[in-house]
């Protein structure tokens, strides 16, 4: 994985000192809370309902074991012994003191980490495929491109006060594991007819209150124009994105209002100007970065036979491991969705245990997934049983990847000052109700947001739940038919909302309709797409 050189380290160290100075000036009253807010947000520090929350960047979801261990230590030292992994492959701490934040950043900087631009109206942490470098179906490893974009977008002076936040995802396989087209910019690395690599740019996707699937704006931007084209996309947005209404300020609204063709025309015009400015790093820089993402020294001829005699292990093996590009290896998914637990939460001890396992069994690498789980990307099949035993002893072996109780949920009204309803208790009730039936129900992506901002990706859930405030009472709307994969679609609302127990019952009625109508190997989503909403509505409201 990528290693900082002296330049990268100097940038992060400088940011720690700058933020320390900003906190000092805030505490001394030299700057107002209104002035401080965008500064702390650009450093991932939110004021929530009970305390400050710090969001730490995990660029493209990749971590070393040393970094993971520090994340565990921070949870002990500055929080209440927990970290919360997020849908943008980051980690959040929910109980932070303002005066501790500079010291936390200093601890992070020692292991080449930071919280730069994890919030605020700027270019956020770049996300990617959690199986990058391990997946059997990828064209190339997408992370060098994401790292190039990380450096370009860090402290970009022109784009620090955009109309609204800006999220970029980079993938390099047709199987989209990063919800790429639900980002402000989604980039897919592709090959053209003559075998050259380039970038397909999808611009103007997003969730929130007006979900949009990003249209294709340019099918092939050559690799040596990637940064220049990105800059053109951003400049048009910075100049013409709406600033009159916070809820219409994302780039998806601009692209929608002026139309994809007009937006594309403006970008191409700006791109032509910017090409003359020499702002593109040379391909040698991309080559330098790519050197850090070569294959680990895989053992050739590693045995591919796994002893399945322990039934609990066999269940987990079938559910939570994925084919690796290297024979004799597997991708291990560690579920952070224990029955009745809080999605994405891990204790400091669990975080350190995962770090140890990565060091010993996964070439010192871990990944955070947008589904709020952890991945050990490169595990020898011969080591799977040992790894499973260690996970099992730590409560980390729930065999539910992509099943009904592998729920994505935002922090909701338990923590978040924007939320209208609690997400966590609903998630816990659903998990307890459905865990015993997870094998029967099969793949089902269930996603819960506690408000219309959609941090829990409810639009993209096969089943989505949206918490709203109805005359001061928490109320939950149900959506069906969303998807975030290569077949991205947005869920539709079934009808009137429910209370907390009502929505759990409604989900059960929906899964019963599925099981009654399922043909062959259909997933919930497939059956829904075939038979349509009406049958579900009849069962839920009839």
């Amino acid at each position, binding site marked *: 994985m990528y290693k900082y050189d002296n330049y*990268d380290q100097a940038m992060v160290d400088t940011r720690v000192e700058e933020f320390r100075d900003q906190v000092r000036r805030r505490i001394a009253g030299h700057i107002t809370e209104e002035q401080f807010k965008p*500064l702390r947000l650009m450093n991932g520090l939110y004021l929530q309902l009970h305390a400050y929350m710090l969001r730490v960047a995990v660029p493209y979801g990749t971590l070393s074991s040393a970094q993971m261990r520090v994340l565990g230590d921070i949870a002990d030292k500055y929080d209440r012994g927990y970290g919360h992994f997020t849908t943008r492959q980051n980690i959040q701490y929910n109980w932070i003191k303002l005066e501790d934040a500079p010291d936390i950043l200093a601890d992070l900087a020692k292991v080449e980490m930071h919280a730069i631009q994890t919030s605020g109206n700027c270019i956020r942490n770049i996300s990617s495929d959690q199986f990058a470098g391990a997946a059997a179906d990828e064209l190339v490893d997408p992370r060098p491109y994401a790292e190039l974009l990380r*450096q370009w977008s860090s402290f970009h*002076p*022109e784009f*620090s*006060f955009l109309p609204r936040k800006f999220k970029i995802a980079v993938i390099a396989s047709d199987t989209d594991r990063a919800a790429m087209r639900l980002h402000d910019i989604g980039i897919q690395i592709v090959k053209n007819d003559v075998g050259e690599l380039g970038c397909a740019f999808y611009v103007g996707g997003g969730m929130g209150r007006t979900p949009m699937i990003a249209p294709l704006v340019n099918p092939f931007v050559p690799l040596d124009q990637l940064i220049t084209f990105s800059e053109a996309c951003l400049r048009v947005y910075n100049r013409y994105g709406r600033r009159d209404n916070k809820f219409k300020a994302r780039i998806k609204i601009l692209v929608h209002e002026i139309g994809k063709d007009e937006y594309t025309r403006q970008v191409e015009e700006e791109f032509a100007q910017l090409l003359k400015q020499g702002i593109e790093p040379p391909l040698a*820089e991309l080559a330098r970065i790519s050197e850090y993402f070569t294959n680990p020294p895989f053992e050739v001829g590693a045995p591919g036979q796994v002893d399945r005699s322990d039934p609990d292990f066999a269940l987990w093996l079938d559910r939570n491991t994925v084919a690796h590009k290297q024979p004799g290896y597997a991708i291990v998914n560690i579920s952070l969705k224990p029955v009745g637990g809080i999605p994405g939460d891990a204790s400091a001890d669990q975080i350190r245990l995962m770090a140890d396992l990565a060091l010993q069994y996964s070439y010192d690498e871990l990944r955070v997934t947008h589904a709020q789980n952890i991945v050990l990307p490169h595990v020898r099949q011969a080591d799977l049983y040992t790894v499973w035993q260690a996970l099992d002893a730590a409560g980390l072996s729930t065999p539910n990847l992509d099943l009904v109780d592998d729920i994505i949920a935002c922090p909701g009204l338990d923590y978040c000052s924007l939320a209208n309803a609690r997400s966590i208790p609903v998630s816990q009730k659903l998990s307890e109700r459905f865990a015993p039936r997870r094998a029967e129900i099969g793949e089902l992506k269930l996603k819960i947001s506690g408000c219309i901002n959609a941090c829990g990706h409810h639009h993209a859930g096969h089943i989505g739940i949206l918490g709203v405030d109805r005359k001061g009472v928490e109320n939950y709307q149900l959506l069906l038919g969303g998807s975030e994969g290569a077949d991205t679609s947005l869920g539709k609302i079934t009808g009137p909302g429910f209370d907390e127990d009502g929505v759990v019952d409604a989900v059960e009625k929906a899964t019963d309709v599925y099981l009654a109508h399922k043909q062959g190997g259909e997933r919930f989503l497939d059956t829904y797409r075939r038979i349509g909403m009406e049958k579900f509505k009849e069962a839920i409201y009839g």
Partner: protein
Amino acid sequence: MDDALRFRTDEPGDDPAVTVDSFGVQTNAAAVRLEPGDDARDLLPYLERLKLVEINFPGFGDGRGYSAARILREAGYAGELRAVGDVLVDQVAAMRRCGFDSFAPQVPLNAADAEAAFNRWPEVYQPTADGRVPIWAKRHG
């Protein structure tokens, strides 16, 4: 103007900055003020005679002025580019990078804080209007 906030050696002009609308009809004006909604490219035919462009930040959170500044510098504008309005100490370094070379904040900046802000960053990741050499160029110099 506070000398510490002007990074030019020429004498400041004393022409009052006019709006973009009146600049269009007032053929001898040498100073103009851009508001966030104005298109900086409307000025490109007149860069030769312009001595001062003020870019107004009515609120610090509106970042359109950063793009306006770079567009003018990219087009070759060499006159004074002044940030005015709600210009805060934590924004001046980014403004400088976008090509601003003078600052007239409506609320005066703390001198020590401003000096620290202008000198804080030893390296930069992006080439912009200030001509600083980006990190990638140093790596492959």
